[in-house]
Every structure is written in structure tokens, then in C-alpha cells.
């Protein structure tokens, strides 16, 4: 029993790692631009398909592919900002609809390019760390966990130690005041979009060998990500990470000890309960809604 608990804990840690990468990006985009990026799950999907295209089909080294995935999806994010979100900054519902439209385009393009069926990604490493007979941690999962910690630390350092990071946080707090201080809103929005999208992309690239890759894989991810950012409090990066850990643990444990559908229901109820008790989420403030 103890072994099962430890194993489930490890699984939860892995889920928390990639969920927090996705949720933090979503929060960053919402914080700076006030737009709910419904296409965020599709950016995750795009990251996974970079691996399918380059690593599975052309055997480019995996590390290089992951880096390319990060940059490529980040650039897609910048393109989204430039083409759509920049023009819809004072129209949040319009931004929502535009991101839904973009989601459909990405899904259709990937379906046409790679087919709608599951894409096969060969394992990057077969190695497994064996703690005991029933507690194992595949190295690929360990990579995801370590990478998430690394990227989130780097993001934290960027936001608190660099001028660009300050500018980003300033315009997330108050866009007009930031603009009056000489901060370029377009530039910070572009940076936020690049970071947010590339985090989703790298999450997709890192998990691609572990999950089933198909054009519709973004859907389940976006639902979970919404739960996470709501529980954490919209606009709070720390809240998003904490909520990702809570959600991943609850979801993984309920999946293991009951079943997947019940776990989804419990996850959603968790969010409703948080909203009923504190309608702005754990770390949220009232005026950011």
C-alpha cells in the first residue's frame, strides 16, 4: 500500500510539472493582455507535433528538437499577438472568439499535415529508475519534472531580476500607468505571448513520447488548465503553480483509487468549492476578474 502511494505520488508530481508549465503560460497571457487564450491547449499540441515531425520522422537529436519546439511555438504565439490579440485588447470576448477560431485552424492544419490518428513517437530513453519492485520512475518523466522546475525558476528570475520582467509585471498590474512610464505595451505583450506559448510548446515537446499525440489532445489539457488557473486565482503565477500541484495530486490519486471520470468530476467540484468559498481563487484579488 505504501509503495502504491509513493508511486502515485511520483505520477502526480509528473502531472503537476507539465500542468504548471501550461497554466503559468495561460496566466501570463491573461495577466498582460486580459485575453483568455482558448488555443493554449493547441499550442501544447503543436509542441508535441514538432517532436513528431522532426524527431520521429527525421531523427533529429531530441534536445535540439525540444529547443526548436520551444522557439517555434513561441513564435506562433508572437504571431497570434501581432495578428489578433493586439487589435482586440479592449474586447475580451472578441479575443476569446479569435483564439477559438485560431484553435480550429491549428487543429485543421495539423490534421491535414499528419492525419487525425494518433502519431507514434519512439521513446527517447528506455531507462527507468527503480526504487523498489513497485516504485519506478521512467527517466523521461524525471526529465519533465526537472525541466519544469528549471523553466519556472528561470521565469521567476526573469520576472523579478530583469528590466523586461519588471516591465511585464508593471503592465500586468496597470497597463495605462505602465504605458505612462514609457513601457511599450506592444513589446511587453509580445514577450508575454512568446513566453506563455513557448512554455506550452516545451510542455508538449517533453511529454510527446509519454502520451498519445493527436490533433485533439489540446482539449483535455485546456480544461485542466482552466481549473488550475481558477483555483490559483486568475493573474497569480504562484497561485497557478500551487494549484497545478494540488490539482495534479487530487486528480492522480482519485484516478488511481476510483476512476478517471470520477477524477474529472472531483477536479471540477474542487474548483467550484474554491470559487464558492473564495470567488477570486486562492491567490486572486477582486479587481482582476
Amino acid at each position, binding site marked *: 500500500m505504501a509503495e502504491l502511494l509513493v508511486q502515485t505520488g511520483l505520477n502526480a508530481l509528473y502531472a503537476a510539472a507539465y500542468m504548471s508549465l501550461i497554466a503559468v503560460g495561460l496566466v501570463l497571457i491573461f495577466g498582460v493582455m486580459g485575453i*483568455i487564450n482558448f488555443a493554449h491547449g493547441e499550442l501544447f499540441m503543436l509542441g508535441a507535433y514538432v517532436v513528431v515531425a522532426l524527431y520521429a520522422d527525421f531523427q533529429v537529436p531530441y534536445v535540439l528538437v525540444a529547443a526548436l519546439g520551444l522557439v517555434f511555438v513561441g513564435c506562433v504565439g508572437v504571431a497570434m499577438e501581432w495578428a*489578433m490579440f493586439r*487589435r*482586440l485588447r479592449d*474586447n*475580451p*470576448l*472578441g*479575443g*476569446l*472568439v*479569435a483564439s*477559438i*477560431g*485560431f*484553435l*480550429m*485552424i491549428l*487543429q*485543421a*492544419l495539423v*490534421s*491535414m499535415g499528419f492525419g487525425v490518428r494518433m502519431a507514434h513517437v519512439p521513446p527517447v530513453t528506455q531507462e527507468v529508475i527503480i526504487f523498489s519492485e513497485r516504485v519506478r520512475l521512467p527517466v523521461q518523466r524525471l526529465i519533465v519534472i526537472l525541466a519544469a522546475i528549471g523553466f519556472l525558476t528561470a521565469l521567476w528570475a526573469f520576472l523579478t531580476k530583469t528590466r523586461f520582467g519588471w516591465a511585464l509585471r508593471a503592465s500586468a498590474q496597470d497597463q495605462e500607468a505602465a504605458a505612462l512610464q514609457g513601457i511599450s505595451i506592444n513589446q511587453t505583450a509580445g514577450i508575454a505571448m512568446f513566453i506563455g506559448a513557448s512554455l506550452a510548446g516545451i510542455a508538449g515537446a517533453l511529454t510527446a513520447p509519454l502520451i498519445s499525440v493527436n490533433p485533439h489532445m489540446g*482539449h483535455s489539457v485546456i*480544461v485542466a488548465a*482552466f*481549473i488550475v488557473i*481558477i483555483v490559483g486565482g*486568475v493573474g497569480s503565477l504562484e497561485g497557478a503553480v500551487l494549484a497545478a500541484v494540488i490539482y495534479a495530486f487530487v486528480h492522480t490519486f482519485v484516478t488511481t483509487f476510483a476512476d478517471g*471520470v*470520477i477524477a*474529472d*468530476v472531483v477536479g*471540477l*467540484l474542487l*474548483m*467550484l468549492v474554491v*470559487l*464558492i468559498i473564495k*470567488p*477570486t*481563487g486562492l491567490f486572486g484579488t477582486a479587481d482582476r*476578474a
Partner: protein
Amino acid sequence: MPRGLAWLLLALVLVALPHGLSFSQQEILVFLTINVLLVASYRLLTLTGEWSLGHVVIMGVGAYASALLSKRLGIYVPVAMLLGAGVAALVAYILSFPLFRMKGFYFLIGSFAAGEVIRLLWKRFRDPFGGPKGLKRIEGMPDLDLGVYALDFFEPITYYYFAAAVVAFCLWIMWRIERSPVGLTFHAIHWQDKLAEASGVNVRAYRTRAFVLASGFAGFSGALLAHYIGTINPNSFDVEQMVFVLTWAIVGGTATFYGPILGCIVLTVLNEIVLREMGFEQMRPLVYGLIMILSVLFLPKGLESVVQRVLSARKTG
């Protein structure tokens, strides 16, 4: 042109419409009619300024309730439809307690979560909801013998006439609600909720009222759908359908009564008929997505703003 004549002309067009269409287009016409009711009820909900992502699930509640009532208890189908609408309104009333603690973005996501919980319960409990496969062989509308002419509601044309009449009646009720003091209060809450509250309006109670009324109509549209297609499952009411409703409303514009309906008709015709006929089968979502983006970029006030511009140009010119 006098108003009465315009309405008469519209009625004639609607009566003649299905006869020029192929069988599959007639079926699309039936769905379109039902969706018009759905999207109009969605606008009623948004009148108080809150946007829900659970509306299609509420439609599903009406569909499931009506289907189960007629299947299990043998209740006469039209009565079951009305009861289904009642159940949807009741569920909405219960949901309103947790949901209306939230506002704005939180309400949007909260309503989505509440809807998703309901949908997952349909999926999980095989008895009575039928699990992932849903309900099959739902009773159709019973044949109606008018003496001279027997109406067979399995025919899309007949069902279209039935649905169109019922939907037109519902639209008229919604129109009357919007024009009543209650409806004007909805508008007041939308534009100035703090001022309305300060003037002694119970904002929460009015939001609940709009939510429950809209849900009742949505549930009725679900019942209309269930007894026509005869089979429903949890995926018929998933977030993808909700996204369609949302885009109809936003592309059409929600400032006027006809905006969302216009959006629904234009986008459905584009998606189902024009793109299909042009042979874009695989690229349909791509083109549809592109249309969505272009319409919010270049028509931020919706299709209704075009209509308004044309009408006002006629008036002045």
C-alpha cells in the same frame, strides 16, 4: 413597407423554404430552427451581462429529462417537452446559488465547470442516463390526425413546421419579456449594475431570473432536438457545441434581439451549405475558424451593426 406586410412576407418565405431544399438540407433546416431558439435564449441570459459556458449542457438537461420522462414514464411527448424545459429551469435555479457568487471571467469558467460536472454524470451513470452511448430510440412526436391530413413528424418538413411554429412562439415570449419592466431591469443591470443596486434593484435576484428563464427555453430547445433525432449522448452537448453557440452570438452581435439569430443563420448556412457544396470537407474547420477571426477583427460590433447601418441609411436617404 408596412410592418404587417413584412411579417406576412417573412412567414410565407419560411413556409415555402423547405420545399426547395434537398432532404439533408431539410434536416439542417430543422436543426437550424432549434438552434435559433437556443441562441436567442442565450442572449436572454447575457442580457444581465454574464456570459455562461454551460448553456448547451442546460439544453441537454432538457433533452435528457424530456426523453427519460417519455421513455420511462410514458408521458405524452409534448407534455414531456414542457416538463423537460421545467427541469432545465429547476437545475439552473439550483446552480444559480453557487454560480452567482461569481462574476465575469470566473462566472464564465464556473458555469463551464458546473456544466461539465453534469455532463460527466451522464457519462458515468449508465442507469438512467445510458452512459457514454446515451439514450437511444427516444419517442418521436406522435402522429397527429387532423381528419383531412395526418401529420407524420418523422418527416423533416412536418417537424420543421411544428418546430418553427413553437420556436416563433417562444421568440415572441422572449421579446415580450425583454420589453417588460423585468427585461428593462436586465438591461439596467448590464450597463450599470452598481447604480441599479443603489436604486433598490436586487441584482442577484434579477440575474437568477434571467438565468432560469433562459435555461427553460434552452431546455425546451433540447427537448425539441431529442424527440427529433431520437438519440442523444453526453457528447451531443459538449463544449464544442457551446463554442458554436458563443460564436453565433458574438459574430451576430448581442445588442439587438435579432443579432444572435442572424449570426446563427449566417454561420450555419456558410458552414453547412456553402462550404459543403464547395467541397471543402476537410478544410471546413479551417475556413470556419478564419471567418470567426476575420469577423471579430473587422466587424467587432457583429453582423447586426451592418443591418443597422443599412436601415439607418435607408431612413435618412
